[in-house]
């Protein structure tokens, strides 16, 4: 590995940046170094979306090399992680529009009158935002534009209202109340389509791939971005104190919010082997650097039980940047992937040098922010078993996340439930785990014990809820009180039971009638409706 400049595609050419602190954020680079101030800082912690930019990376789709465009929060992405990638900001959209206008020989003559002329240089997403009165103070607007532009580039059809909502899940607006922004997201597709010309960018990124792996040393701080697992393993042993950096959705805040100094950094984002999803008959192995977006796409295909969790897990740009491996390795008591993974008997794959070992995920967590990770070891993958359908057995798996807000919030309680019932309706196995209830993500041992071998009934649920009280002694904080956590943890068991009832059995439910509507989300139409 040799020392060289950070190189990435930006504003139509390869930019070279040297001698920059490894923790200089993309946003600081844009605003302070380049004086490109279209991208705004709203919170510097990835929660408001004013800084949203789009990052392009080479990926393969159906065996063909393509450019994957995804939103990230530039306020918590470090500039060196852009090496070999492409960066797009709100200022790029006018250029994309202008190129299209040049290409389009039938384009109407540009009206010289000022306001009108300006509007002609707007991208359809921007024009729709103007036409639908989707900006008021305008500060959040560039972030919304970029989220919607990524959507626009990635799907050729107009979104449903629900889809549009998901694409802007990481963008806060304090002025409009969102309705006009959602309207604009859909209406942009009515305007003549304007798309990014991707081929030159793909070839540029391919050329950058040929460069040696990035590593450099500045002011006592080393930055490494190895390309292979083997290189990573060597570095990990050589620099055991180095901070491993994945999506930086947490580490980014250490810098911007806590003012912490990192010593050496090993960035995992270029380790190709860690970005793979390995599909086997018995399991799926998700590489540690697979984004949460891709991980959830795979997991929800595997089992719809993941859907609710995937929907409420962070915002789109955070899921694009954050990784499943990072969520698991971080080991936060309120990390949302672990309870579900634990109930699915997932294993964590750890590597030290050339050797790997596997641990049941639940055994990885020892105590608050303490894991079984050894010196020189790193998380390589998460292995999720594929449960086989067994004749006569019914398996149920559901996940729930409870927080103050529907989208993009930290759990008060996150619960995952997996039971297998035999044909007689007796519980054969039960794995139940919670986040937010203890210092680590943790199984509900007493509750599980109370369930196994018993008929799956309302009465059983009531006794299991009592047993659950023995499993946890949660804390009170600004998110929720201990008592509330206890009550809803137990109530989620009731919800799970309700949702396992077959439609006809439900008619004999506790209230004597069919529970037609089980979840609030069932009440939301996917399209806007005139009442």
């Amino acid at each position: 590995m040799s020392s060289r400049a950070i190189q990435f595609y930006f504003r139509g050419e390869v930019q070279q940046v040297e001698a920059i602190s490894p923790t200089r954020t993309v946003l600081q680079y844009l605003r302070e170094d380049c004086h490109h101030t279209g991208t705004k800082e709203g919170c510097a912690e990835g929660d408001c979306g004013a800084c949203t930019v789009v990052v392009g990376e080479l990926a393969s789709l159906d065996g063909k090399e393509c450019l994957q465009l995804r939103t990230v929060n530039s306020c918590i992405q470090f500039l060196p992680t852009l090496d070999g990638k492409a960066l797009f900001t709100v200022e790029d959209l006018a250029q994309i529009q202008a190129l299209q206008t040049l290409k389009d020989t039938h384009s109407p003559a540009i009206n010289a009158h000022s306001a009108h002329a300006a509007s002609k240089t707007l991208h359809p997403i921007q024009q729709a935002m103007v036409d639908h009165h989707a900006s008021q103070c305008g500060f959040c607007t560039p972030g919304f534009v970029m989220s919607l532009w990524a959507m626009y580039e990635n799907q050729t059809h107009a979104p449903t209202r629900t889809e549009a909502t998901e694409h802007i899940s990481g963008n806060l607006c304090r002025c409009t109340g969102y309705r006009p922004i959602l309207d604009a997201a859909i209406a942009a597709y009515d305007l003549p389509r304007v798309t990014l010309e991707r081929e030159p960018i793909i070839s540029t990124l391919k050329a950058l791939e040929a460069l040696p792996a990035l590593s450099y040393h500045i002011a006592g701080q080393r930055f490494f971005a190895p390309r292979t697992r083997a290189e990573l393993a060597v570095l990990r042993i050589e620099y055991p104190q180095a901070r491993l950096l994945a999506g930086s959705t947490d580490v980014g805040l250490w810098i911007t919010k806590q003012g912490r100094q990192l010593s050496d950094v090993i960035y995992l984002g270029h380790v190709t082997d860690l970005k793979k999803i390995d599909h086997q008959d018995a399991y799926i192995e998700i590489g540690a650097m697979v984004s949460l977006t891709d991980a959830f796409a795979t997991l929800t295909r595997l089992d719809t039980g993941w859907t609710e969790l995937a929907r409420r897990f962070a915002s789109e740009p955070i899921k694009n940047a954050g990784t499943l491996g990072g969520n698991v390795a971080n080991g936060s008591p309120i990390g949302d992937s672990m309870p579900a993974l634990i109930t699915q008997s997932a294993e964590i794959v750890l590597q030290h040098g050339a050797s790997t070992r596997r641990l049941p995920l639940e055994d990885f967590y020892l105590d608050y922010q303490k894991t079984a990770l050894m010196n020189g070891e790193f998380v390589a993958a998460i292995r999720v078993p594929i449960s086989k359908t067994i004749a006569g057995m019914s398996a149920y798996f559901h996940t729930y996340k409870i927080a103050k807000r529907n989208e993009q919030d930290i759990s008060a309680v996150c619960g995952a439930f997996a039971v297998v019932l035999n044909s007689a309706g007796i519980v054969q196995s039960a794995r139940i785990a919670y986040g937010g209830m203890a210092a680590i993500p943790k199984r509900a041992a007493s509750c599980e014990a109370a369930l196994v071998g018993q008929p799956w009934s309302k009465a059983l649920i009531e006794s299991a809820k009592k047993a659950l009280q023995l499993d946890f002694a949660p804390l009170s904080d600004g998110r929720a009180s201990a008592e509330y956590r206890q009550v809803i943890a137990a109530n989620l068991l009731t919800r799970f039971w309700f949702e396992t009832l077959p439609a006809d059995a439900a008619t004999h439910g506790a209230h004597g009638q069919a529970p037609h509507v089980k979840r609030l989300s069932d009440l939301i139409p996917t399209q806007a409706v005139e009442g």
Partner: protein
Amino acid sequence: MNQATNLSEVIHINKDPALKNAGPIGKSIPHESAHLHVSGQATYIDDLPEWEGTLHAALGLSTCAHGRIKKLDLSAVYTAAGVRCVYLAKDIPHHNNCGPIVADEPIIADDVIQFYGQVIFVVAADTYQQARAAVRLAKVEYEAFEPILTIDDAIKAESWVLPPVDLKRGETAESLKNAPHRLQGSSAVGGQEHFYLEGQISYAYPKEDHTIHVHCSTQHPTEMQHLICHALGYRAHQVSVEARRMGGGFGGKESQSAQWACIASLLAVKTGKPVKLRLDRDDDMVATGKRHGFDFEWDVGFDDEGRILGLQIQIASNCGFSVDLSGPVNDRAICHIDNAYYLDAVAIRSLRCKTHTVSNTAFRGFGGPQGMFPIEYIIDDIAYYLGHDPLAVRLINFYDDVTQIAAHPETARNTTHYGTTITDNVIPSLVKELAQSCDYTARRAEIDAFNAQSPIIKKGFALTPVKFGISFNATLYNQAGALVHVYSDGTVLLTHGGTEMGQGLYSKIRQIVAHEFAIPLADVRFSATDTSRVPNTSATAASSGTDLNGKAAQAACITIRTRLAIFAAELAHTTLDHVVFSEGHVYAGTDDAIDGKGLQKWTFGELVLRAYQARIQLWDSGFYKTPDIHWNPAIRFGRPFYYFAYGAAATEVAIDTLTGETQILRVDVLHDVGQSINPAIDIGQIEGGFIQGMGWLTSEELYWVKSGAKTGHLFTHAPSTYKIPTAADCPSIFNVKLFNNQNVENTIHRSKAVGEPPFMLALSVFSALRDAVSAAVEAETGIRTKLKPKLEAPATPESILRAIHLGISQPFGPRP
């Protein structure tokens, strides 16, 4: 375009003899900066190119809620990389105060620490990162005192920022005693963080001869100017403050921008360098004031129909450690305790509690929402107690409208408890129209049917009204100035005392000015609000921006247009009443001269150039003061409001009875903006205000640490923990309509103010949530209790579940 048509016909069509203009008034024209917003080209203060040598400031904040600094060791701060200046209270040359009304708020704490997060020193360094890194190096020891953190504790300790206030009308005690029914109750509503997306920022640069220019993200440039003067010991003509646009304000940049403007200016003068102070989001949330939280206790008497006969109520607000704007905020709460209801006998006690938390301030509605909260709660309780539909109880309690007053003038119910006679009431007809358009009765039945068969999810429904007084309570602020330049090429540059925070003020005023000259919108531009262009401005607040500045700008335009008309009449040898400004042209001439030499026609630019050559003044100022208002602050009596804005919302919600989570399903709004100047902007204000109000009443919980080392620390100090609504919270059915009305008062184009009133439409969300909680309790207990369950705002999932458990007699412990 220029139909050179019969002049008398032209004049006849036009309301104003000098104008024939289809014009921009009443049209949904995009925001004047929309094309800049979407392309990232709208310049906020942090986007300005930096002057050479600019220093960046950062704040050293206290980590103690109440106490005295025992030891302040800043040695490591002084020697940190890039640090150019460390500044303490003792370095302030003149007044160490940024309190807008009472001088009780230090710019930098100099003795006693009053809240966790108070500024104790500041640093200026070469870069933003260096300044932020340096302030972390301070070592501070405190002698801690016992802090007062809650309203309850403040009342017990009789800890006030201002003395308690009573406002009484009628014989309340007697009325309560004689009332057929009587209920006592209590509730509370939390505060609210503004969460403007652009945080607080000021950028000051010193100029020659002891003058300074400050770019400040503020709603109140003149107050910034004054407070900077007081801190520096300067006089007003030494300081200019400029504000082109804010990335949101909502009241949070009225008085709360002052501390940062002062600090940036102090550092700039001290170092002789330009100094920018941009607050990091966490610092912003910890160190700036918020909406006041309130506790309520009441005793209400009513008749069999639910008509309120007497109300005794205590409203206690958390003002934080200093006065700030708490006086007028609480006065507005007092003046909105009635909302749209006639209260014959009422006794209000208003407590202005001092706590060791950040000093609370203006926030959209300015105490109005908190004033209205309890009366809607009370109406729901009365309806439930009597078994009536809440809408029926609301209807019989409304103030009389014109028809009702005419029917029984002697017993008219149209005087407020503070002595204003209401003459523009439209709430009865507005509410009836909404009830019909939202299908109130049928949906009420549908929701009951749904609830009867849905064990886990319960729905709730409510329709609530809004009546909101427009004008600053303090009469003196109801004035504005504008400055209009017509350049010799016919383009117009305009400024006034109002500031643009996204609400569309500049857009509306541009429409007004383009209309007055009958010229295209593109010919009118706005220069930034600047105290050196228009002086002695009032805050852009109290929803009054367009009312005041629109009239002032119009006055300036009329002065200039009249000069141009006289000049045109002279040129055409005709009289003034034969001059018409229309569609970018000016016509002058007489009827008998039609198609002859007598009718002259110029483009606006042509006439302007000729006027310039003839040495006619093409620029002028305009001034406006709201007529007919008066207010006696000592007894809180008079006509503080020029008129009222009305509206109503019907909201359908669902709650999850297992977790307390909520979903807003459908909202129907009918709102009165008089004759709208720009319907799209007005609807934007209504929808945005509604969602912001919904956030206040549902997910936006401010939580202060109650014990331990971080006592008094705001736990919810960032968007990770403080949850404003997202797109997923916007109801999928959201019908917003403007009520067909025009202002009975002579406001600009008969429009009405729209900034704040819609915020309170969200009270329908809270009322609907209580309705759903009632349904949950009723389903669980099988009995319809006579009282709705106690629910406090914000109705977070925990608050909802807490209310259900209280209703079914399985209460949670208190919220720690």
